[in-house]
C-alpha cells in the first residue's frame, strides 16, 4: 500500500499554505509540507531537503545519516565475506 518516493525540495512556492516544489529525477510537482515543518524546521529551511512524497504530501524527512548507516551495514556484510573468502583462498594455496 502507500506508494512513496524520495524527492528533493527545490523551491518554496507558498509559505502561508506550506507548499513547495519537489523534484524526482527531473519531474517536479507541488506538494504540501505541513507534516514536516515545526519549530525546529522552518519552511524556509526545507529547500534542499530530501523527503518521502506520498499523494502530494511530504510525509517524512529522509535522514541521510540513517540511509548511509543502512548502506554501510549492507556493504560491511559483503566485506566480511570477501575477507573470509580471501583467507580461505590463501589457506588453500
Amino acid at each position, binding site marked *: 500500500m502507500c506508494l512513496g518516493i524520495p524527492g528533493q525540495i527545490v523551491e518554496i512556492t507558498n509559505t502561508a499554505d506550506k507548499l513547495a516544489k519537489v523534484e524526482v529525477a527531473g519531474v517536479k510537482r507541488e506538494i504540501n509540507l*505541513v*507534516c514536516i515543518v*515545526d519549530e525546529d524546521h522552518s519552511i524556509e529551511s526545507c529547500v534542499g531537503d530530501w523527503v518521502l512524497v506520498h499523494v502530494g504530501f511530504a510525509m517524512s524527512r529522509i535522514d541521510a545519516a540513517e540511509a548511509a548507516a543502512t*548502506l554501510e551495514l549492507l556493504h560491511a*556484510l559483503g566485506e566480511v565475506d570477501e575477507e573470509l573468502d580471501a583467507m580461505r583462498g590463501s589457506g588453500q594455496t
Partner: protein
Amino acid sequence: MKYVDEFRDPEKAQTLVEKIRALVDQIDACKSRPLYIMEVCGGHTHAIFRYGIESMLPEEIELVHGPGCPVCVLPMGRVDDCVAIAETPKVIFTTFGDAMRVPGSSKSLLEAKAGGADVRMVYSPLDSLSLARDNPDKEVVFFGLGFETTMPSTALTVLQAEAEGIENFSLFCNHITIIPAIKAILDAPGVQIDGFLGPGHVSMVIGNAPYDFVADQYDRPLVVTGFEPLDILHGIWMVLEQLASGEARIENQYSRVVPDEGNGPALEAIAKVFELREFFEWRGLGSIDHSGVKMREAYAKYDAERKFSVPDLVIADPKACQCGEVLKGVIKPYDCKLFGNDCTPETPMGALMVSSEGACAAYSRYGRVEKLVPLLGRGAGTGTGKAPQAEVEAP
C-alpha cells in the same frame, strides 16, 4: 535516483541472499517445514514480484502476501456506494487511479465513467480540492482510501477546505487501520506465520510502538521495512536473525524514513478529523472491530457518507472464493479452486485478483519463474490462440 538506486544494487542483494541462506540453515524449524514470513503491505508485495525477489530466496522461505492492499480489501458494497455517488447529477467524483478498476456488484468506476459519470483520476486529494475551488457549481467528492499513510493527506485536505470555507468538497471515507488487521490474522485459526515485515510507510506516520503486541503477546518478530528491494531482503534477513536466536522484537530496518515516534502533525490531523468505526468490513477477511475510521461529527458537512444517500449494502463474495485463506497464508493463491479458471485479472472474482498488488493478481501476472509449467507446448497450438489459463502456475 538518490535513495532509490543505491537500494537496488545487485551485488549487495547477492550478499544478502547468501546471508539469508546461511541463516536458514541455522533455524531448526525449517528442517521440517517452510518458514512463513508475511509482508503486511501491498507495496512490499508489488516490489517482491516486480524485482523477482522470491526467485532469489531459498526454498525454505515462503513469503505470505498480507492484507495491506487497500484497493483489494475494499468491499464490493463500498464500490457500489462510490458508483452511486459518482452517478449523482452535478457530482465530480475524484479518485486515485488504481481504485477505478475495482469491480462493484454491477460496475466499476471506470464503467460508471464510460456510462457518463464524471469520474476523474487525481494524484492528490489536494487536486480534488482545487477542482472544487474551480467548479463552485459542482459537488466534488474525493474517494478516501488507504491506511494510516494516506489518512493525513485526506484529513489535511478536509482541514484546508474548512479553512478556505469551500463547501462543495466532501470526502467518502474508506480509510482502514492496519493494526487490527494484523491482530485478526494472528488470531485466525490455522495461521502459521513466523515473522512479519512491517509496513514502512504506515509506520512513518504511526511510529513503531503500535506493533509491540506482535512481539509481546504473540511472540513473533516484526521488522518495519522499506520498499526498495534491498530493504526487503534486509528486512527478511533481520527477521531470520531474530528467529535464529529465538527472539521476538520490533525492529526498524527503514530508519532513514521511519522515526520511532511517527509523525506528530500527521497524527494530530488524523485525530482531529477522524474517529474509529465500531467495525469495518474487509473484503476477504470479513468484519474487523475498530479497523476503519469515519469522519467526526464536527466535519459532517465534508462527509460524503452524510451528504449523499448511498445504498450501503454488504455484498458477499462468491462462496468458492478463498481470499481469506490466502490473505492469512493458509493456502497459496494457486490452491484456490477459482484461481486462473473463473478468477483471472481480466475477470476478478475475489479481492486479491483486483489490484496488481493483490497476491493472486501478482501470482498470475508475474508468477514464480522456476515453478512455471509450459504455457504452450512447442509445435502445439496455433501460436496466436489464448494461453490456457489454468496452466499459469504449478503448485
